[in-house]
């Protein structure tokens, strides 16, 4: 078994055979066309590293079709986004024509990691569509997927199995964040979905959405079948729900800068902080911060790091908090003084020492 590394850089000027950054393919599409093979017989894993060394976008539509893979010998496409915020200096698939940016059109075991993907043209299209991948597994992790022109669903899955983790999906008021067809099992963990018509449209009883922050959508969750658990939304959907109380004009208390695509948790007062469940949560967040930082995972793609010198715990302590400032609490044989009390979230007072 060998891990074979490939390289894609739209700004590369070398031989274009994908064997190094210098000689990188200039599009993911040309890599996919040239290197299709039977990974199972070869007992290989292909790892495709993507960057844009001078900021040029990859504009070629990628159709995944013509491979033989299995869960052991698979294909990984890895971008270089590392902030969780859309960046024009990082690798991005930005397709201005056609009706999809990435299409997995037959059974292919494949992962998309740290990519930025958008469709900027077309009509009723998809940034990523898994149109016919029954019998295989697709993983989408730490990606930013957006629809800046009101033209596309962010991710559509029509059959097979797909797990989506730590992703930020941004719409423009229309279409869907995750569009789950009746024949597809889709598990969505710790994603943030913002400003679509339907944040998560789920139609399979085995599909799950957990620890997701879904807000400022016309309908946050449109669930015909499936499970929503420990998610935060304007609508308070699902079981163990967190209802976001901030209005569209005041999301600053929830995330750092929603309007400009920064969905990191604002601070320990955010309703997303320490409000999810550790069951099923990925071990790290969209920028690699380990989970959980406190007792339980934060909701959404980002895990908040408490600044040095501070420590935050959750404790049920009563109905009034003002009296508890200055109080001593023993934690692990260390007495700590309560410095301030944050807001009440799910009957758990957040206290800062």
């Amino acid at each position, binding site marked *: 078994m060998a891990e074979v590394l490939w390289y894609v850089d739209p700004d590369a000027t070398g031989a274009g*055979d994908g064997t190094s950054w210098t000689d990188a393919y*200039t599009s993911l599409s*040309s890599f996919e*066309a040239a290197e*299709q093979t039977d990974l199972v017989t070869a007992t290989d894993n292909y790892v495709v590293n993507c960057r844009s060394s001078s900021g040029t976008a990859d504009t070629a539509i990628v159709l995944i079709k013509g491979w033989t893979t299995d869960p052991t010998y698979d294909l990984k496409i890895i971008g270089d986004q590392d902030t969780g915020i859309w960046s024009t200096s990082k690798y991005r698939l930005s397709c201005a024509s056609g009706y999809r940016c990435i299409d997995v059109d037959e059974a292919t075991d494949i992962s998309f990691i740290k990519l930025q993907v958008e469709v900027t043209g077309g009509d009723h299209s998809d940034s990523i569509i898994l149109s016919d991948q029954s019998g295989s597994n697709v993983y989408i992790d730490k990606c930013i997927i957006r629809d800046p022109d009101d033209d596309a669903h962010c991710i559509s899955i029509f059959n097979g199995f797909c797990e989506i983790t730590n992703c930020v999906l941004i719409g423009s008021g229309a279409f869907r964040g995750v569009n789950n067809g009746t024949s597809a099992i889709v598990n969505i963990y710790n994603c943030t979905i913002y400003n679509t018509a339907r944040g998560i449209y789920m139609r399979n009883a085995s599909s799950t959405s957990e620890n997701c922050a879904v807000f400022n959508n016309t309908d946050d969750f449109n669930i015909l079948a499936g499970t929503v658990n420990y998610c935060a939304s304007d609508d308070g959907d699902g079981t163990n729900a967190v209802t976001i109380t901030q209005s569209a004009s005041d999301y600053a208390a929830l995330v750092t800068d929603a309007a400009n695509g920064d969905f990191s948790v604002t601070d320990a007062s955010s309703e997303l902080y320490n409000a999810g469940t550790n069951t099923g949560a990925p071990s790290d967040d969209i920028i690699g911060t380990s989970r959980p930082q406190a007792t339980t995972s934060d909701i959404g793609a980002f895990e908040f790091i408490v600044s040095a010198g501070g420590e935050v715990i959750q404790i049920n302590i009563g109905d009034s908090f003002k009296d508890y400032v200055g109080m001593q609490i023993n934690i692990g044989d260390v007495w700590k003084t309560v410095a301030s009390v944050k807001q009440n979230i799910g009957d758990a007072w957040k206290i800062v020492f």
Partner: protein
Amino acid sequence: MAEFLIYNKDHWSKSVKLTEEQVEKFKGCYKNGDVVEVREDGYWDKRGFNKEAFRVVKKVGLEVADAIHYIEPLEKITVSEVGEEDKVETLERRKYQITNVVTAESKIASVEDLTIITKTELSVSSIEAER
């Protein structure tokens, strides 16, 4: 002037013995002559391309906007019931084949005319029968 990146080899599945299921799976894969990408004039002058897999040809007097449709797949769309997505089946990765790509591997050919085959569902059935 538009530049075409053209698939210029046989798909790997043609060199191995396939099961019936695999024949079905790979029947829509890239064929020699399929248009992989369409780029603006000069794009491939500044960049390399895998010469074992592709050829590049330039078409004089053709704008990218008028040529971008050559990367379309051949699809069969089945309209579904209300509330369900239409079923889109990709019959061929590319609907169009350029067949006059006889050029040395290291050169980018500029041609006055392209010989283009437009695949149809009927022609795909013929290809299947040949297998």
